[in-house]
């Protein structure tokens, strides 16, 4: 069984990166065993906080040894009072952390051609992934997209890690004017891609998975669903996914995911219970 730890972390650094904050923290034990695509949860606002729910963050970078032992970085986009509180943490503050959590990206056994696609700060978990793919001798082409330049994350860093990088923005403030779906088909053909890895908003993942499936390329998508517990007990973060037996089930993004095969998620049905889902209400019988 996989190991999950509950630790008290020390904040080492909080820095701005475009629209986002990058937080470095000690994570003894977690950093050493984390795999690409896994995440941590952090309790918001201290022991007496009125915010009962942890927030989850993809593991962005890990340093398994150093002055502080294992440390890791997360990327925070402020969009509520929890993430605002987190962005206001300072060096030496402590955070209650649980991790590593979730199903990681699966890595190819042989050196194949890979495309990694990140939307906004959804690129966060792709850096460690890119490193490990390169270590395996894979070709790694990256596509980073966002609505505007300051919502791109990690373009420079990823330039160093990837064989080549394509940037898209909706408003044309950086790179190609458009979105990742506009450039992906041509890229897949050009590099003769074997696998596409993606992390970002649901709409983007849906488009990426559709393109990959159409081009008969294996895809792995890391979803971001609202979670209450992050450890598999609350059943809030479910989405309809087709299993090996062809049956659709409502599965947990936290433990069954966040990484799913792109061709297995019923993207257009996310947020609903499709009628043929295992255990779905029989119409007229249940509320």
């Amino acid at each position, binding site marked *: *069984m996989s*190991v*999950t730890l*509950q630790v008290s972390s020390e904040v080492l650094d909080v820095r701005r990166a475009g629209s986002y904050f990058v937080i470095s923290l000690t994570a003894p034990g977690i950093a050493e065993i984390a795999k690409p695509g896994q995440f941590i949860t952090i*309790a918001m606002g201290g022991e007496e906080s*009125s*915010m*009962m*729910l*942890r927030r989850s963050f993809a593991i962005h970078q890990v340093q398994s040894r150093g002055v502080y032992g294992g440390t890791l970085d997360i990327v925070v986009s402020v969009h509520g009072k929890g993430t605002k509180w987190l962005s206001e943490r300072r060096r030496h503050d402590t955070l*209650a952390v*649980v991790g590593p959590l979730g199903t990681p990206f699966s890595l190819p056994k042989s050196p194949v051609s890979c495309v990694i696609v990140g939307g906004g700060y959804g690129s966060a978990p792709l850096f460690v992934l890119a490193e490990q793919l390169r270590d395996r001798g894979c070709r790694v082409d990256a596509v980073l997209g966002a609505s505007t330049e300051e919502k791109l994350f990690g373009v420079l860093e990823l330039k160093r890690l990837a064989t080549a990088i394509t940037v898209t923005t909706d408003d044309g403030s950086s790179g190609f004017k458009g979105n990742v779906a506009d450039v992906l088909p041509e890229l897949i053909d050009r590099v003769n891609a074997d696998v596409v890895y993606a992390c970002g908003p649901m709409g983007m993942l849906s488009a990426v998975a559709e393109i990959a499936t159409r081009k008969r390329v294996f895809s792995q998508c890391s979803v971001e*669903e*609202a979670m*209450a*517990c992050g*450890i*598999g*007990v*609350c*059943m*809030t*973060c*479910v*989405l309809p996914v087709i299993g090996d037996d062809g049956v659709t*089930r*409502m599965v947990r993004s936290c*433990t069954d995911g966040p990484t799913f095969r792109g061709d297995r998620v019923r993207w257009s049905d*996310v*947020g*609903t*219970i499709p009628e043929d*889902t*295992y*255990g*779905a*209400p029989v119409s007229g*019988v*249940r*509320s």
Partner: protein
Amino acid sequence: MSRALFVKPSSLSGPALSVDMTASFAGLELPSPMLTASGCAAAGKELDAFFDITAIGGVVTKSIMMQPRSGRATPRMAETPSGMLNSIGLQGPGLDRFIEEDLAWLNNRGARTIVSIAGETAEEFGKIAQRLRNVGGFEAIEVNISCPNVADRGQVFACNPVSAAQVVQVVKRNSDARMPIFAKLSPDVTDIVEIADSVIKAGATGVSLINTLLGMVIDPVTMRPALAGITGGLSGPAIRPVAVRCVWSVRQAFPDIPIIGMGGIRSGTDALEFILAGANAVSVGTSIFNDPSAPFRIHGELQVALAERGFSSLADAVSYAHRPVDTTREDPITSEQSSDDDWDFISE
């Protein structure tokens, strides 16, 4: 700022931890009064990664129904001040797979299990109880009567003393005579004591107090209900005073029935409140989402809290808040000391 008004008595600095934490009620003898609250711990397996699941009193499993169930659409939850709203819709694997996988795991692991059951009709509750009776391997049944009653236009069983009693009766009839049966009551009623009276007369061994309160959140951005299910159950520390009041009222009416208390327990002193109000054991729910080790941590904190107040056993503290006012006798805790730190703010 505030200044401490009282000095802590010396007994607080080095509490003797020889408090007997055994919870004896309803024929059960649990090594700890700490249970998980149904729906907040799945079937215990995930939490076993954070603490020894056999070290707490027991696991109250997520309510199981006869058939597999997909649950409701998402979003299923919204964070609220000191709590959350949920509308999961009893997603679950169905009774057969629960028995084969979840209950089997709990038994192999050596955990004590209280099986929570749910149904859409009184008959479904009865069939589940019957099947469980044949299987065994659990300590008690908690009857989740806060489900919509299909035969009563979807009104929840728990809100009507007659339908609540019907469910309990059929579960009792289909269970082993010695099997403890707890009816989990909803606080969304005019008089919870009336419902408690009804289920006890119908054969419930005891009651679990309380289930969530019905609530609603509207998203100010979309200007629509935040949950796909429109309404949801409110849980967490926000509802704790409601829960403590329910335990108090039912205990006052029934000095001897077994009560499992729950509703926003986050610390040892929260658990103590329920014990003092009359609970024989307590369940931890929403706080698990905040701290997956909460049931285990709170056991330790409760033990310290009891020791600090001079109790040598958990049993001595049950219902202690109901004792008559006695001006001649000193309480276990030094009489001029208030146990609530908030009194510190009454200074000058």
